């Protein structure tokens, strides 16, 4: 890659005594932080600690109530994202903004497309520019400029955002990455980190926001921790520990995130045999009462698709699903719910929550059948139910009449869990239950999962965080290209073993299931795994 090096003894980007109020809420209080050029500064903190607000102020999206921003010593006024862009401050947002029906090239230069007289698009110049930029940045192998926005994978969408940040009239001087890895698989993360390394070496101040400790230790030079809108501390990444960071973030110790006993019984709750849909193929698996089975794999391996199929949302092409030995028909989600299957889906805001409605409404939704007399909902019973589960899951809110949109990510996830727990499902499927959840709530969610297992619920967890998979699961099923490619017991599972299975034969996406997957040594083709 060829990014002009600007590394000299410049002070870089600095926030000075930034305070931000939204009405009565004080989001940031007197935050002073420096982001030196040629270094990766990680920004950590629980959800609501003020990371996003700070990023938005640095990139001109919000204006501070008080305080200044300096770039290389000079105070700069950022009245809009355009100002920030012009000053050389760029952000790679968590959810890339991609225009679906136009090409990668047009997506990258959207807003400043090369033109010929008469405002016609200059296709030749566009082609020349994208080819040159792709090559300069080393993306020419991974990003086809002719693909449409809608055809891109999560990683490619992010590359488009990165290209937007690194092209343009002014050279980038500071780049912020907002949880860039949350929808990337592990090898895509490696490629991203290599790129960030090159940006750093080119003298750019890199701001890296993430919840993931391992990534931060791999990548960061300095770590700044925010707590409740103030700077809890800035530490040297080489001279700190996970424990210290957690203490800075939550102000207390979380010694054992995963305090889980393995309590699986013998009774098989879920038995899937030869299930295929448009996206997954020949899936056979069992989950016992009290057992936590994790589905591991790369993004796009078909794990969420399997979850949606089991929840009755996608039609089965073949195969059978049994709950407690009874074969069930899955014509729609209602069938799955009736059979005792609950799904907390991957995108809780888009797929599970009614943000404008109360905690009570959101909790009772799938239990209304039980709460009604004739067709009238019994308010008192409903309140009691919502209150019971809000208490049990320790949902932090002023009352169960609070609208769900006002809650933090972790508490929203607890509301989704409360909805299903209130139905007492036989099988609970949790798709990325801790994504975007702060570390305190994470520990609580792990505890909830452990408690449910102890009460005999069968649990199927999908997670892209390997430590979570290892910490939670009794058994691990690894998926790739819509198939189960490996089964591991918790005693034999390691991150390396899971990754090896997840990337077993790197089938190209163009040749899907025709390429048969050879059983590997660790693979136990019989349903029920290796125990």
């Amino acid at each position, binding site marked *: 890659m060829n990014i002009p090096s600007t590394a000299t003894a410049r002070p870089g980007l600095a926030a000075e005594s930034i305070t931000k109020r939204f009405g009565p809420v004080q989001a940031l209080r007197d935050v002073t932080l420096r982001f030196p050029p040629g270094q990766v500064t990680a920004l950590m903190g629980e959800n*609501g600690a003020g990371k996003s607000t700070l990023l938005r102020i640095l990139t001109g999206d919000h204006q501070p109530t008080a305080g200044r921003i300096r770039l290389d010593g000079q105070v700069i006024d950022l009245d809009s994202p355009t100002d920030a862009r012009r000053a050389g401050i760029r952000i790679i947002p968590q959810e890339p903004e991609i225009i679906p029906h136009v090409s990668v090239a047009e997506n990258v230069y959207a807003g400043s497309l090369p033109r010929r007289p008469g405002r016609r698009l200059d296709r030749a110049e566009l082609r020349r520019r994208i080819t040159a930029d792709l090559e300069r940045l080393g993306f020419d192998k991974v990003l086809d400029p002719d693909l449409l926005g809608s055809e891109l994978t999560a990683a490619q969408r992010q590359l488009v955002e990165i290209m937007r940040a690194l092209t343009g009239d002014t050279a980038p001087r500071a780049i912020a990455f907002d949880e860039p890895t949350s929808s990337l698989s592990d090898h895509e993360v490696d490629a991203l980190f290599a790129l960030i390394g090159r940006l750093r070496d080119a003298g750019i101040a890199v701001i890296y926001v993430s919840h993931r400790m391992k990534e931060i230790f791999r990548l960061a030079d300095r770590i700044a921790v925010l707590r409740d809108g103030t700077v809890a501390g800035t530490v040297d990444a080489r001279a700190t520990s996970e424990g210290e960071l957690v203490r800075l973030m939550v102000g207390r110790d979380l010694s054992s995130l995963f305090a889980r006993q393995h309590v699986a019984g013998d009774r098989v709750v879920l038995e899937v045999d030869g299930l295929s849909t448009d996206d997954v193929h020949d899936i056979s698996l069992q989950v016992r009462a009290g057992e936590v089975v994790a589905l591991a794999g790369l993004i796009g391996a078909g794990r969420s698709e399997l979850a949606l199929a089991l929840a009755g*949302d996608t039609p089965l092409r073949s195969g059978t699903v049994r709950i407690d030995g009874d074969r069930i028909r899955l014509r729609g989600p209602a069938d799955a719910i009736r059979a005792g299957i609950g799904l907390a889906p991957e995108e809780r805001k888009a797929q599970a*929550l009614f943000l404008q*409605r109360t905690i009570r*409404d959101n909790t009772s939704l799938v239990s209304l059948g039980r709460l009604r007399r004739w067709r009238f909902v019994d308010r008192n019973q409903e309140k009691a139910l919502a209150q019971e589960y809000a208490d049990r899951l320790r*949902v932090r809110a*002023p*009352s169960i009449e609070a609208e769900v949109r006002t809650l933090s990510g972790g508490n929203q996830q607890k509301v989704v869990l409360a909805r299903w727990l209130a139905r007492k499902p036989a099988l609970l499927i949790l798709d990325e239950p801790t994504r975007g959840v702060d570390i305190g709530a994470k520990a609580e969610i792990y505890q909830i999962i452990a408690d449910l297992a102890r009460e005999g619920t069968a649990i199927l967890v999908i997670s892209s965080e390997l430590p979570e998979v290892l910490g939670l699961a009794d058994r691990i099923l690894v998926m790739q290209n819509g198939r189960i490619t490996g089964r591991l017991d918790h005693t034999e599972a390691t991150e390396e073993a899971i990754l090896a299975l997840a990337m077993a034969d790197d089938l190209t996406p163009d040749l899907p299931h025709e390429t048969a997957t050879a059983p590997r040594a660790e693979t136990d083709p019989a349903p029920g795994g290796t125990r």
Partner: protein
Amino acid sequence: MTTALSVDRELDQSGGRPTPATDARNWLARTGGQNLGLIGAMALVLAVFGWLNPNYLSWNNIQVIAEAATISGLLAVVQTIVIICGGLDISVGSQAGLASVTSAMVFTSTGSNSLLGIGAAVAIGAGIGIFNGVVIIYGRVNPTIATLAGLAAYKGVAQLISNGSAQGYVLNDSLFVFLSRGKIAGLPVMVWLLLLVAAAVHVLLRYTDIGRNIYALGGNDTAARLAGINLNKYLIAVYALSGMVAALAGVLLTARTGSGQPVSGSEGLELQAITAAALGGCALKGGKGGVGGTLLAVALLGALQNGLTVQGINAFWQNVAQGALLVAAVVIQQRRARERAVGLPA
């Protein structure tokens, strides 16, 4: 957050005996800002026109206002459900016209059988509603476009079967006379019908699981689907209900004018219905709103229209006012939602 409280039970445990202050606060919270605004506007309208013309606030004129608002009020009440689902039905006016003609023609051709006439109109309404729902769901046609097409087509059907002219005479029948001129406890029957339908819809939305599911599917259809709600069934039923109530409005139109009207009296009702629902606080993207707000808005629009007419203000101006009110209602709504003013609204 570490500072946040756990869910507390203060609301339930505030000592059993609510103080007047908490009573007032609860009432305010239940009524909501939007409705308070409507009540304020209503008071203003009544005060201004009452001051300009003392007869405006007479019991007689208030009955005139209520009767005039009944037909658009019925349509506004069902429009509320449709909008809460995230849909829209702009064919309600044309449906009412078609139902009006149908009721009169069936009445005439069955030897003055008013029950058959009304029944046929309501059945046609239900059929059209189901057809709208099927076109929207299985044809994948955006609700606005589908019912815009219906607005033109159903009006055309009404004109075709009636040859474009008023049909029959119904005020020789006691049931139609009762509908148009009858009174119960001093209130016109028409107004009672509106209140009855409004109360039924209110109970449906607020107190039944059906209502919960309607709010759910309008608020987030993916989440509603994954919660096991049969979206297609609900949407088709809601459009069918919309058609049936539109047909009821058409029957009342027949009763009021004495004959089946293909176009006159029903044209433009969809605009009034949508304006009332939007003013009453229904979010046009669905999931939010209620009958109470809509009824207040219907009353406000009725009072305003009557006041302007009483003052002899040109009807053309009333059209301008109507359009302006609809836009103003939505602008207020969107400002509250704090949507960023970039590109097309969501």
